[in-house]
């Protein structure tokens, strides 16, 4: 079946602009996660959705970052007034059930290919 998809695959923007990054999770997966990854580092947690609601947004670095998942499927990560420090790979993952509610195997997170964001 289809995996997690993310668009665009690459995004180049200028400092101060607004960007939207889209994630299409695996069908039927209730949990959706956004991560940010810098070169040579592991994924850094940003936000987690259970259904339509953001259950944990403690990883969002500041109020320029916002994410939605209005129908409990596709999610959009929105970054306002982009800064050069926002340049990174933004990864999306989905799982059948969330970490804290799952039986063994149901919590496995499957990742998309990422969106490479470059802020000039």
């Amino acid at each position, binding site marked *: 079946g289809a995996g*997690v998809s993310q668009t665009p695959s690459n995004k180049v923007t200028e400092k101060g602009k607004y960007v939207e990054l889209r994630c299409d999770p695996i069908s039927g997966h209730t949990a959706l996660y956004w991560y940010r990854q810098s070169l*040579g*580092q*592991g*994924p*850094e*947690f940003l936000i*987690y959705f259970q259904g339509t609601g953001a*259950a*944990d947004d*403690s*990883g969002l670095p500041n109020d320029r970052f916002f994410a939605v998942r209005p129908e409990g499927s596709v999610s959009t990560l929105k970054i306002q007034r982009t800064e050069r420090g926002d340049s990174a790979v933004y*990864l999306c*993952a989905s799982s059948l059930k*969330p*970490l*804290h509610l799952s039986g*063994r*195997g149901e*919590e*496995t*997170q*499957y*990742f*998309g*290919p*990422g969106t*490479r964001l470059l802020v000039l």
Partner: protein
Amino acid sequence: EDQVTQSPEALRLQEGESSSLNCSYTVSGLRGLFWYRQDPGKGPEFLFTLYSAGEEKEKERLKATLTKKESFLHITAPKPEDSATYLCAVHSLNSNYQLIWGAGTKLIIKP
């Protein structure tokens, strides 16, 4: 504070030269430990989940093991296509929603 440390940062091996990657963790209680493989320009690809000390999982040339303080990813007779960054992540009792990730080990297998 929960922490995950992977070593070495990078490992270069000749094709066929077996070795192990380490993932050490300090957490209040382990719910699960995950191994992923990440190729350049791609998202992490799930390999294994381990839940309790003594557990082992195998897939082709890879075998993951778990103790109460660390996990090893053993690679036997590796091939160049095994070259990738291997990431380890832990789900701890302290965190309902988040995994704690290591920085990864970059594995290079030379033909």
